[in-house]
């Protein structure tokens, strides 16, 4: 609510008010530099990791401001996971350990059967059948698309409420992209997904809601069908029909 973000003196987000619906996929679209990646990084307190970065306003998760003084950023990031543009499995760890790493680091595995969590997480991202005999191999030994699904498995092993995805398919081929897109649609059964994408067809395929950002401001937000069939704001129309520039 009334969210603003800065990098030093430069304001990257301007008074953003956006309500993200539970168990839905919300796509964030907009030209480069419009603030979409900055925006999702404010949703799990990653923005504050950048030197000289600051924010004002509130980000409410289940009614609680994640920037409140009593909120632990590490706990916030457990509840709000992130998947990045390039697959980034921990290079020295095995496939198994990549999925289990977060649980071990945060001590969240107490009382849990780690093998079971790893298996379920890999099953949820439809990777289990492909890697079940190679769990001890390095996470970097599998294909790019598999690595990205491994990273999603790593995120969901923590049982987050929200999964943020920052252009998760931009480094993948069309087949791997299609698998991730199917996965995104599946994930909303159990999680709330926010996805930043430059690919408007991807936004229209996978999301229930779409928000268009421009110059750090939220220009339009609504159901994806409405945004792509009949956008209300002329700027949105120009952007999605490729008339910009």
């Amino acid at each position, binding site marked *: 609510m009334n969210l603003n973000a800065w990098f030093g003196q430069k304001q990257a987000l301007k008074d953003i008010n956006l309500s993200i619906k539970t168990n839905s996929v919300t796509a964030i679209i907009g030209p480069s530099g419009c603030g979409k990646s900055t925006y999702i990084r404010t949703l799990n307190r990653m923005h504050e990791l950048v030197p000289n970065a600051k924010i004002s306003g509130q980000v409410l998760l289940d009614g609680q401001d994640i920037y409140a003084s009593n909120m632990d950023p590490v706990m916030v990031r457990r509840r709000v996971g992130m998947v990045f543009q390039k697959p980034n499995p921990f290079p020295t760890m095995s496939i198994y350990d990549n999925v289990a790493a977060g649980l071990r680091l945060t001590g969240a595995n107490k009382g849990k059967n780690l093998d079971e969590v790893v298996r379920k997480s890999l099953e949820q991202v439809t990777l289990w059948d492909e890697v079940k005999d190679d769990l001890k191999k390095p996470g970097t030994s599998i294909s790019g698309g598999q690595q990205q699904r491994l990273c999603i498995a790593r995120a969901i092993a923590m049982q987050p409420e929200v999964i943020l995805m920052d252009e998760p398919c931009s480094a993948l081929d069309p087949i791997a992209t299609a698998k991730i897109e199917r996965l995104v649609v599946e994930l909303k059964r159990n999680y709330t997904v926010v996805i930043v994408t430059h690919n408007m067809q991807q936004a229209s395929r996978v999301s229930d809601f779409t928000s268009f950002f421009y110059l750090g401001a939220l220009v339009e937000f609504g159901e994806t069908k409405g945004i*792509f069939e*009949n956008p209300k704001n002329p700027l949105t129309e120009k952007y999605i*029909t*490729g008339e910009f520039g």
Partner: protein
Amino acid sequence: MSRIIDRGLEEQSVLLTRMAELTYETLALSIQGYLKGKSVAPEVKEMSAMLVAMADRVEDKTFELIARFQPVASDLRTIKSYMKIGNDFARYGRYSLDISYISDQVNGLKECETWVKVYIQEMSEKVLYMVRISIDSLRRHDMTLAKTITQTEQEVDKMYLDYLDKLIKEDQTNSKCVLSSALMTRYLERIADHATYVCESIVYIATGEKITLT
């Protein structure tokens, strides 16, 4: 710099504009043939077949544009509406063919009383006026003009229903006239409907709203 999709949209627009003019010529020819008792069926048949072929080309172009460019927003609405309008124009051609058929087979209005001839002449003029509105609205993408079609559409609907009433109440005995004029008014009423659909599509392209202009 224009977008790549603009070239495809322009091709579709040019094709549809050519189709629009042919559709008007076809309708005018068949109606004149009917009113004057002149056989025009061979020409109308050829023109109607051309309209069907052109509608197929508009449809093919629509599929190509969707497959290659994944259009959205006004582009998507335009492409979808162009395909629909192409089908409306093909229907104009089909009704023209039907009119020329009853003109040949049931002698047009030759066996009708004068008042029937006058009535159908007036209804025909109204319908041709509506078709012209639909074509000009398309050519200029003129939503304001498109919306003016409603009044004439209502008049044509009323004329059709009134005529059926008259046929029933006045106990017409000339079966050829009854058959010919009843079919003709029905075809005219359907053509008027398609002209209205074209105008509704023009509004949809401009605003994204699906309105009814009847």
